[in-house]
């Protein structure tokens, strides 16, 4: 499978001047709102610790809590299904719908269904799917995956949305007024809610104690998707389970503050029992999660509550856009999750980071994101997935820098111009450095030469 080239993809994103400026500003604004909201709570840092501990406890007893969830959900009259991987998930969803003659699905936002590539699977089997989250719908109409896990179309300007809507749902191409566009989408979507045979949501949390699914949204589309059709299916990653309803108090306080800098989402919906005369199904999906749980260095990534704070703060993400990662999950959390799906394909992603650590500092469940990025680099190198040019540069650097003699020969080029600069120090790609930056000039002597001249030769201070 072809390796994703993040650097190449980001160069295209950066060329669109208006887009990158807006993207960076919009997400930085979310980061600042997050800062303002989090300091309102004196106990914010303590909450982060508590949230992390609850998640770590749950993950280390995951099988027990999942079975507790299943037992309670079943008792509530919910059908619980287990999917080992994406293919099983998609097949289960299809069979639930197909066996009931359901052809139309209204769907709230779910990264898991994107991860499973569910839409094309169902569409080729004759099922019509309407994404009902505004951002997700824009992306569906533009035939693009979401670029952000919370704000899926954040890389688009309103003029882009006007173009997409005019080409697909017939809005006025010259009208890019936000309210006009949102209202047009709303009117376009409404009839689907009424005629849909099935509704679907993801889950922010699954509570073991009550067997309920908790969905946090701002648009109300998830509730319409659940409450109008006669069939409701929730796709739930197995790491979403929390032991008790009281634990929600911790996570719900942190989720929207971290994500959007708002105290809480407009709606926090608990779906527990099917409405009279309707069915509710929960598909619990593994798709690599239990394998990840067994990875010493990486299982902490399963604590993620998908708030996107790491993406909003990431200076690389803000300047390269989510689509440049070529994966369902982008930004810092994507960088540490994606290689578990396909190491070779996503082997460039852990290098799309300066290791600045801001992601780790904002993470509400204290995932050591930048340390995991560092670890992934080692694994990628050990499994021979580094590009040849980088591997060779590092082999040369390792040889030169471990030998005082070779090192000195490389750097002691007194009076040299750019052409004699110690190329290995710029990793053999001096031309790349100089594309948009001036190259540092080599001084007349190295520090060591100066030191020998001024401190050693004179036998002391010169």
């Amino acid at each position, binding site marked *: 499978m072809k390796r994703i080239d993040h650097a190449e993809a980001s160069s295209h994103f950066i060329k669109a001047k208006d887009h990158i400026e807006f993207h960076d500003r919009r997400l930085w604004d979310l980061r600042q709102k997050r800062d303002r909201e989090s300091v309102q709570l004196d106990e914010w840092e303590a909450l982060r610790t508590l949230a992390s501990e609850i998640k770590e406890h749950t993950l280390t007893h995951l099988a027990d809590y999942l079975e507790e969830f299943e037992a309670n959900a079943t008792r509530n009259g919910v059908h619980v299904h287990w999917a080992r991987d994406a293919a099983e998930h998609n097949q289960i969803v299809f069979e639930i719908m197909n066996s009931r003659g359901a052809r139309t699905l209204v769907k709230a936002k779910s990264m898991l269904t994107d991860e499973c590539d569910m839409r094309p699977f169902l569409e080729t089997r004759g099922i019509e799917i309407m994404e009902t989250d505004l951002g997700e719908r824009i992306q569906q109409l533009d035939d693009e995956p979401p670029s952000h896990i919370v704000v899926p179309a954040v890389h688009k300007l309103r003029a882009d949305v006007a173009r997409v809507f005019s080409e697909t749902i017939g809005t006025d191409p010259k009208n890019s007024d936000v309210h006009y566009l949102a209202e047009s989408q709303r009117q376009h979507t409404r009839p689907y809610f009424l005629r849909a045979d099935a509704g679907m949501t993801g889950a922010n949390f699954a509570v073991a104690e009550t067997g309920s699914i908790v969905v946090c949204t701002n648009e109300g589309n998830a509730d319409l998707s659940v409450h109008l059709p006669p069939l409701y299916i929730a796709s739930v990653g197995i790491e979403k389970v929390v032991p008790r309803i009281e634990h929600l108090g911790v996570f719900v306080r942190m989720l929207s503050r971290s994500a959007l800098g708002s105290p809480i989402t407009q709606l926090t919906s608990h779906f527990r029992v099917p409405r009279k005369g309707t069915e509710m199904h929960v598909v619990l999906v593994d798709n690599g999660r239990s394998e990840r749980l067994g990875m010493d260095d990486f299982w902490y990534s399963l604590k993620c509550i998908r708030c996107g704070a790491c993406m909003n703060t990431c200076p690389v993400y803000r300047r390269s856009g989510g689509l440049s990662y070529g994966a369902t999950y982008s930004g810092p959390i994507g960088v540490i999750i994606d290689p578990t799906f396909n190491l070779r394909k996503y082997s460039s992603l852990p290098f799309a980071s300066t290791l600045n650590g801001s992601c780790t500092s904002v993470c509400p469940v204290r995932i050591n994101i930048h340390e995991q990025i560092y670890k992934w680099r080692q694994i990628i190198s050990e499994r021979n997935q580094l590009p040849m040019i980088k591997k060779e540069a*590092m082999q040369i650097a*390792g040889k030169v820098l471990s030998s005082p003699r070779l090192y000195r020969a490389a750097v002691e080029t007194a009076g040299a111009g750019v052409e004699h600069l*110690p190329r290995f120090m710029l990793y053999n790609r001096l031309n790349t450095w100089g594309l948009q930056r001036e190259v540092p000039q080599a001084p007349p002597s190295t520090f060591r030469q100066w030191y020998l001249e001024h401190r050693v030769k004179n036998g002391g201070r010169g």
Partner: protein
Amino acid sequence: MKVALFVPCYIDAFFPEVGVATLELLERLDIEVVYPLDQTCCAQPMANSGCHAEAAATEKLFVRNFAGFDYIVGPSGSCVHHVRDHLTAIPQTPQVTKVRRNIYELVEFLHDVVKVQAFPWASFPHKVGLHNGCSTLRALREAKTSEIDEPYFSKPMGLLSKIKGIEFVTPERPDECCGFGGTFSVFEEPVSARMGYDKVNDHHRAGAEYIVSADMSCMMHQKGCAERLGLPIKFIHVAQVLNGAQA
């Protein structure tokens, strides 16, 4: 007090004046400074690229050069961070752990160990934007970051504010990464350069005449960006300012 001076490879090769300022500053403070002559690099470039096998020999050499000292001081946050937190490509002998424990970045050494109260020889009557490299900020924890809800503190500010005439200006995003990131700067050139441009423009808008930092590698990148953009910003290492550089 005897200190081993660690001058990282890129400072040795490109910015010897930073090594000189560090040495002179420590000497001014009546510290005996030894510069182990066989030193090269801390192995961070290889290790940060995931190449542990390629980093091992350089780490071994580093430990051999610095094992005999109770204090190892270097004017570069990311290199010190590598030695302290990531020098793990070789077996962790008592000698290795001692070196890792005894290394200090210059600012934290002056602030925490020597506890310098004044720099009477120094004045710097300029508008200065402080740049904390990300390793210095979030790994060495030399200052409060904007992400963490905690009381304000800043070791570099603590030292620099003792300098006569210095005036600080604050960019809009003081602790946003500048995009250097070691090998990132060449392998992710488009994003790296964009981040560098945004960084120096931010300082320029704030009115900075100088950017001062304990991280010369960030400044090598920022300087390259500012020169290409034609911005009239100058760059100077914190060691030079504390040592009394005039401009």
